[in-house]
């Protein structure tokens, strides 16, 4: 019964609040061949679209998790309901992360089909980038209760990767283009910490 209720929440959310984000994420992936070659690339060249372009879907899918209740009146109504609002947000986030992973997986398989030299590392690297970009947006949007600030923070982080480059060290997103991979572990850990921190902080603030 509980799982049925949760499934209904997810279905309703996808239908009413997240469909547009999924459409935008699919569009981002569909336009990528305009910018990049996807066929017959070696592992370094294949990392270009997977590190620079595909991870943008993380911003599109994860940043707006708190958007439906950004309006204070709606938030008050939602908080008064039986199902904990945080659980709804965790479900949304989980679904967004799964969708991002599926989309990136499909993209990597398509590149493989086009004779590009892609491996599971490319998938993990691209997913790690999407996850950290999304987590930064999720954190700032969640703590400021303003999704525009979330988008701004993740775009600033993305932009810094072009300007500061390798000076970002473990937070550098485009490491696979330079043959590295170690940074990805750090990105996955930091993104997870940011998400846990955001959810905990919101719960503490709400309980006061």
């Amino acid at each position: 019964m509980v799982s049925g209720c949760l499934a209904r929440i997810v279905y309703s959310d996808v239908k009413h609040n997240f469909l547009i984000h999924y459409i935008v994420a699919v569009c981002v992936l569909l336009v990528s061949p305009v910018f990049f070659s996807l066929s017959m690339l070696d592992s370094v060249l294949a990392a270009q679209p997977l590190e620079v372009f595909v991870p943008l879907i993380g911003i599109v899918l994860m940043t707006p998790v708190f958007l439906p209740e950004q309006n204070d009146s709606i938030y008050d109504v939602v908080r008064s309901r039986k199902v904990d609002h945080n659980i709804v947000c965790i479900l949304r986030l989980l679904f967004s992360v799964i969708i991002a992973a599926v989309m990136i997986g499909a993209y990597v398989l398509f590149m493989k089909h086009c004779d590009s030299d892609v491996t599971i590392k490319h998938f993990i690297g691209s997913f790690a980038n999407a996850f950290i970009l999304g987590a930064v947006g999720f954190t700032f949007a969640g703590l400021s209760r303003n999704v525009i600030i979330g988008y701004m923070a993740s775009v600033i982080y993305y932009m810094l990767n072009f300007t500061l480059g390798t000076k970002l060290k473990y937070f550098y997103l485009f490491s696979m283009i330079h043959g590295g991979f170690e940074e990805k572990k750090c990105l996955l850990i930091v993104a997870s910490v940011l998400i846990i921190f955001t959810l905990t902080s919101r719960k503490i603030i709400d309980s006061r």
Partner: protein
Amino acid sequence: MLFSKECKKILHSFTYILYCALVILMVVSQYFGESDGKVYPPVKGGDDYGYKIEEDHDIIMSSATVALTTEYFANRYVCYPFGFYKAVHLNNKEQAEVEKYISELSGLDSKELIDIKNNSNIYNYTDGTHYYSDYNVMDVPVSETLTYERFTEIMGDVDDILGGGSDYAVESLVVRFSRIPMTYEDAVEDYNELIEDDKITGAYARLFSDYAGIVLAIVPVFVAAALTAADRRRKMNELIYSRKTSSFRLVFTRYASLVTMMFIPVFLLIVIAFVQLLSMYSGEKMDMSVMFTLPTFWLLPNIMTASAIGMLVTELFSGGAAILVQFVWWFMGLMMAGTAGLDGMIGKYTFICRHNSLGMRRAFFMNWDNFVFNRIFYIIISLAAAVVAVLIYDMKRGGRFDGIRLFGKNSIFRRKA
């Protein structure tokens, strides 16, 4: 009164604080990181003095013809349509078209081209997961009857066939095929231009604008979108709609305060950069005004355009849509500017103007007319966008339009019960 109220509102917004932090970070890490040392005259006997662009039509036509023939033989054309690598392979019909153009460029027929191909050394290499055979074409003649105008027409057509972003794009020809290493004398001349023609500040003003322009082409949209969306969020719309003040005055005052507030940190950074130059080049003759006029003319259109787009799209759709539109524009602009070259390759409609060098003055002034047209064009575009934002605001105020909603009740994606 209204203006100062809006300015105060912006000053206290979190997006503005983030905006200031990013602009400062960008200019400090990039510009001040590069400008902290004085430029000294070149030393005789050096190995590398850099390169210069010499607009020599004979060199351009000859080098481009050889390059095109080489890529034609391999049927593998390397392009960077948006700053990223793309290897283009043409079908038979398109290859035949390129061959026709090569014949016109060189005055050679198909048989003679095949002879050149057969006499060229073949070297094999791997690019990606594919193995290629490339031809080391040493020399292809240029037809004596070919004019430079016809040559650029042909190159433009070839670039179209390749889908754009190739070395043969008309605006790239000079930079790609007429770049030659500088001699000691050239390097001295380049240095003298910095001191005498640029009066030092001109060169530093270009470098400052180059770095600041990247960030100012995107970040203002966040501040504008957040401010525009704030009325709806705080449920102040109805209250403001009922006031006597005209929509034009309301929107334009907000727009003016956004542009003013966002230019203030830029102006302060210009002042700091100027003081740094005064201390570094004390005793040298400097043009004081250019350090303020050039960055203002260069950067203000970026702030104005990103702010106007932020306001317009937020009024029409939502803040998220405004960010998406501006991000796509910024991303494409940045990549295309990088592909065209970072030394003054400014087109008439290039949104992000780049000149990432203290030298190369001549390359910048080669496109000066484009630059002036470009900046005035974006000022006009931004004002036009602000006027459209006024019209939409006025329609919403009169209850004739409620924006195109992407979320919630009445959204375009919500199925009606």
